[in-house]
């Protein structure tokens, strides 16, 4: 049986599992859009700061839900795998001819499907409330591809943590940490407008800033190849590193001969 077919079977199960856990669906849809509404209402005067790149804070902030949605992917992918480890289901899978890599990719396949739907929803919400995509329809497609890629990268990170710790609680503990990482980025302001030096430095070294800026560029700038290159580059690097780590952790976890 081909690895691709195995990925398909595992991904189908992952999608079914996600669809049958309302909390896994509701939170990624509700929270990011609620925060989008609250934050853009509260921080809209920021657009009057000289040099602010957009006259709509809503448009500026629309990149946020895509990243927060990706963080939910971390948690979902991780807790699902941790549950499989704790229940012994991973051992059941290990007794089949399933390849280790197919297990991880399949698990992420389910996450990718959910992330894709989430991202279409966030974009639709933005367009409904009046945000205009400077990069046009093609930019919208690229935006969804990039955001889904980011979700896969974060999902792989969640899978790595689950495989290393074998604990759903440990994976959930990672979520606040990543959320802090999100706040210490250029989420609320462009980096050049952050006045506190330490914050600007942290945001500059924080890869999440580049993911957000890439997504944001498609919404408020148009085609900014540098921002897009950095965003795709960091997403790809993060995904590759997390996949390698997850695969390594799986080898340690699965001691089958």
């Amino acid at each position, binding site marked *: *049986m081909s690895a691709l*077919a*195995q990925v398909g*079977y595992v991904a189908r*199960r992952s999608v*079914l*599992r996600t669809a*049958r*856990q309302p909390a896994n669906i509701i939170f990624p849809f509700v929270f990011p859009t609620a925060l989008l509404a609250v934050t853009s209402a509260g921080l809209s005067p920021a657009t009057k700061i000289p040099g602010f790149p957009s006259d709509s804070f809503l448009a500026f902030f629309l990149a946020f839900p895509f990243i927060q949605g990706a963080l939910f992917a971390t948690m979902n992918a991780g807790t699902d795998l941790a549950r*499989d480890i704790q*229940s*012994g*289901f991973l*051992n*059941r*899978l*290990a*007794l*089949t*001819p*399933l390849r280790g890599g197919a297990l991880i990719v399949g698990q992420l396949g389910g996450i990718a499907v959910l992330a894709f739907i989430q991202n279409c929803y966030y974009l639709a919400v933005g367009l409904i409330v009046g945000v205009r995509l400077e990069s046009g329809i093609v930019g919208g497609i690229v935006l969804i591809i990039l955001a889904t890629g980011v979700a896969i990268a974060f999902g792989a990170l969640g899978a790595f943590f689950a495989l290393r710790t074998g604990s759903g609680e440990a994976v959930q503990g990672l979520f606040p940490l990543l959320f802090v990482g999100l706040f210490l980025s250029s989420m609320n302001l462009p980096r050049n407008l952050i006045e506190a030096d330490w914050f600007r430095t942290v945001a500059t070294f924080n890869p999440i800033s580049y993911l957000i800026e890439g997504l944001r560029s498609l919404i408020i700038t148009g085609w900014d190849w540098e921002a897009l290159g950095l965003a795709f580059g960091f997403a790809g690097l993060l995904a590759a590193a997390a996949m390698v780590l997850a695969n390594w952790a799986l080898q340690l976890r699965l*001691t*089958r*001969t």
Partner: protein
Amino acid sequence: MAQAHGIEAEGLVRTFKGGIRAVDGIDLRVEPGEIYGFLGPNGAGKSTTVHMLTTLLPPTSGTARVAGFDIVKEGPKVRTAIGAALQEAALDSLLTGREHLNLQCALHGIPRSERRARSQELLERVGLTLAADRKVGGYSGGMKRRLDLALALAHRPTILFLDEPTTGLDVQSRSALWGEVARLAREDGVTVFLTTQYLEEADALADRVGIIDHGHIVAEGTPAQLKAQIGRPTVEATPADGATPEAIARILERFGEPTGGSAKGVAVRLEHGVSDLAGIVRALDSEGIKLENLALHAPSLDDVFLAKTGRSLEGAEEEEAEVEA
């Protein structure tokens, strides 16, 4: 499903962190089509042995061949030949029974055209047709165990590993599972390696039994052979009001050596077997001793365990629990 190879292990050892030797040099041989009962208390090394034989855990030393394949060098071939239902019924509470079977069949490479029929056949076999499309989260313990067994059989394995398959089940579910396991071996020729901590399970199901304690096999043979090693039956007399245990003991000792009985009773292992019973009754009657109860005990596997380890299986359970705590 007849097969040429069963299970062979030589000097199988598994050491964990801290130097704990969970399995300490096991040699065993299970013939094709045989039901082999692996009996022992919690923590004796049963599950670790199963994990090694099913290729989920590499041995620290020693060798084993399952279905003719080396468990270390030919893991994937071993996995193709075996089915396993491990200690906890490892199921996904969000999937239905049928979805579990479809996934299992798919991952084992059963063609799409056969999957549905195979799943249905297995659901019927384990009596889960009506619950097939319900999520497993709502299944009872017995239903989960039956589904677990069906999943282990999905790819028609020639060797089946069942790790404490009836632990926690009610009598009815246990009996149904015993029936199915026996049928698999007798009718389909499947070799069954069954771990259990229930004496009656090993006694009722197994063609041969291996008793494991502290990682060692301390006795092996058919249940009848093992009991015969202990030899003669015991008789236990419980005095009625007014009779003294000492008086009873004096009479019983003429028929055999004293052995452990209940708190109220006096027990001896009969020197000449069951034929001594009539003499005991006559002797007690002639002395005018009244009894509340007189019981003849055939040797049990617990007696074997006691003879081989110095502890009863129940006592060993408690001891292991204390060690784990």
